[in-house]
């Protein structure tokens, strides 16, 4: 019989954040035991670092921001341009590094915006119930009736193509998912005795929702939101690909694939291929993290590898 698993020592990072050792059996503890989840988390970390330090990681920072270098156009991967250059002679690696900024900004922007709207609508509908609930949920269901990407397309088309509008357009098609999730949580929380107790002593509704309902209903929403970061990257890339994303010279992976597409069949594959690989790897890493987080958050599945 094996002895109880010893507690691992506190990592320097956790000490820096003022956190104690990881409690065995907690969600974080389970996450750290999943090697695939750890690899994925490292990849996400690498992209975050690449995004933050992009100007220092490449000698072609100006090109990364969009300055052309026409004499160098469409050079294949070589010693000075590891991923080659694009149709304006810009270093593809630099564009990919700066593109990580756009991608992460959009991914986080979409999720945060959608969560904020969804949580407001869902919490109000769930807490008040009755006709308020009825009307809000009818509206939510109507938004859910659109295929998600298409709703984002018409909103982006109506607003005009830009980075902010991409975020708004995708968030418009996403908030209903969070609204439904939070409403279900609130419906069960509303019946808890501590909520009944603060209601009985006359605490106003907006305070109860803010202080007692939302904080307790958020955990599953954050789990879902993390799992959705990958999908957010993919949706944004799709919009960029059809021309509803950020305008040039903003570095963006979806735009790079769209622009590089015309050169792929004539042999200059590197622009589209490297940009697409960046999207795939980051989306995959986010999705893997999301999967593991979802598993460890649910006691029924937390032991799964």
């Amino acid at each position: 019989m094996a002895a109880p698993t010893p507690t691992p020592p506190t990592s320097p990072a956790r000490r820096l954040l003022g956190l104690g050792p990881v409690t065995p059996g907690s969600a974080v503890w389970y996450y750290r035991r999943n090697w695939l989840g750890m690899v994925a988390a490292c990849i996400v970390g690498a992209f975050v670092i690449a995004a933050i330090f992009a100007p220092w990681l490449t000698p072609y920072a100006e090109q990364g921001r969009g300055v052309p270098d026409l004499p160098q156009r469409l050079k294949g991967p070589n010693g000075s341009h590891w991923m080659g250059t694009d149709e304006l002679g810009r270093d593809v690696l630099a564009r990919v590094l700066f593109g990580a900024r756009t991608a992460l900004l959009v991914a986080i922007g979409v999720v945060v915006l959608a969560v904020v709207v969804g949580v407001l609508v869902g919490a109000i509908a769930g807490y008040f119930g009755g006709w308020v609930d009825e009307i809000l949920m009818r509206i939510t269901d109507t938004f859910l009736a659109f295929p998600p990407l298409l709703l984002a397309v018409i909103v982006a088309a109506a607003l005009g193509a830009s980075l902010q509008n991409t975020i708004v357009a995708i968030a418009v098609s996403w908030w209903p998912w969070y609204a439904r999730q939070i409403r279900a949580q609130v419906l069960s929380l509303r019946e808890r005795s501590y909520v009944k107790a603060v209601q009985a002593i006359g605490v106003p509704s907006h305070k109860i929702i803010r202080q007692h309902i939302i904080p307790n209903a958020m955990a599953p929403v954050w789990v879902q939101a993390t799992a959705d970061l990958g999908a957010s990257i993919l949706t944004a890339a799709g919009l960029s690909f059809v021309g509803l994303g950020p305008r040039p010279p903003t570095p963006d992976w979806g735009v790079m694939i769209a622009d590089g597409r015309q050169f792929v069949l004539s042999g200059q594959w590197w622009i589209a291929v490297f940009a697409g690989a960046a999207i795939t790897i980051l989306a995959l890493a986010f999705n893997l993290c999301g999967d593991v987080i979802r598993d460890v958050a649910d006691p029924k599945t937390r032991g799964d590898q």
Partner: protein
Amino acid sequence: MGGAGMTPPLVKVEDLHVTFQTPLGVVRAVRGISLDIAEGEILGVVGESGCGKSVAFRSLVGLTPPSALVEGSLFFEGKTMRFDGELRAEASMIYQNPGAALNPVFTIGQQLELVAGTNDRAELAELLDQVGLPEPDRSLDAYPHEFSGGMRQRAVIAFALAQSPKLLIADEPTTALDVTTQAQILDLLLEIRDRTALTVVLVSHDLEVIRRVCDRIAVLYAGNVVEVGAASAILQEPQHPYTRALLASTPRPENLGRKLASIPGMVPDGREPIVGCSFAPRCPQAVDECRVEGPEHRSVESSITPGVSHTAACVLVGGSP
């Protein structure tokens, strides 16, 4: 040694251990149960929740999660059996929650067909009739959600009997039912035993249920048998301090007007090793010896059922180990 008589036991369990590998360490749910089950008897298995009674008997038919390690020996009619479900050929089970034990999207008839291995409607209806389901032919086309709790448990019993088992393991079969239905289901079990000489293990935390139908009783504590013997002997002359405490904490006519005793303390944590007698920390009569060495089973000569084996694992019990 056989239980109720001279015939060799139908089932013999020796030194059964069930341990769970969890990330928080090893949990020992069953710690060395040895038990004989005689053919045709109804054996009651009683104990507090968490004492391992369900785990132990589910492990006999291979119903343990993948993280569980089952060790020990199992004999059926003298033949060695594995714990991977080999016994399923001879044994059936009925469950605590009959609603959950029925597949919601198939009719009773469709499910019964699969376990009975026949699609003859008359035969299937006959199986339902035997467990006292009204309108057996129409019940075949019903979905489980159209049944009441008692009817569902009857259907589950019909499924169990459809495999013509020699042993029926009933895991808390009446816990989820109301009192009237409980009595009906227990009567049905008795009737089936009388008609078919089926051997039944009735696992329950409820002494009333056990008292009503059982021939013999095994009392479990912390994953082990602490006392086993004829039902009347155990109920009237309990030997083990734990059995006494358990009886004293059950509402009975003779306890009327008296305050019900509760047993102080808690069942030991399955993760902690046990030194000495597992009940010693909660036992009012514990002596120093109890905390050092685990007691052997000692036989008791019962005045009520002379000649029937009755043993208890306690140093205070007279008689030879």
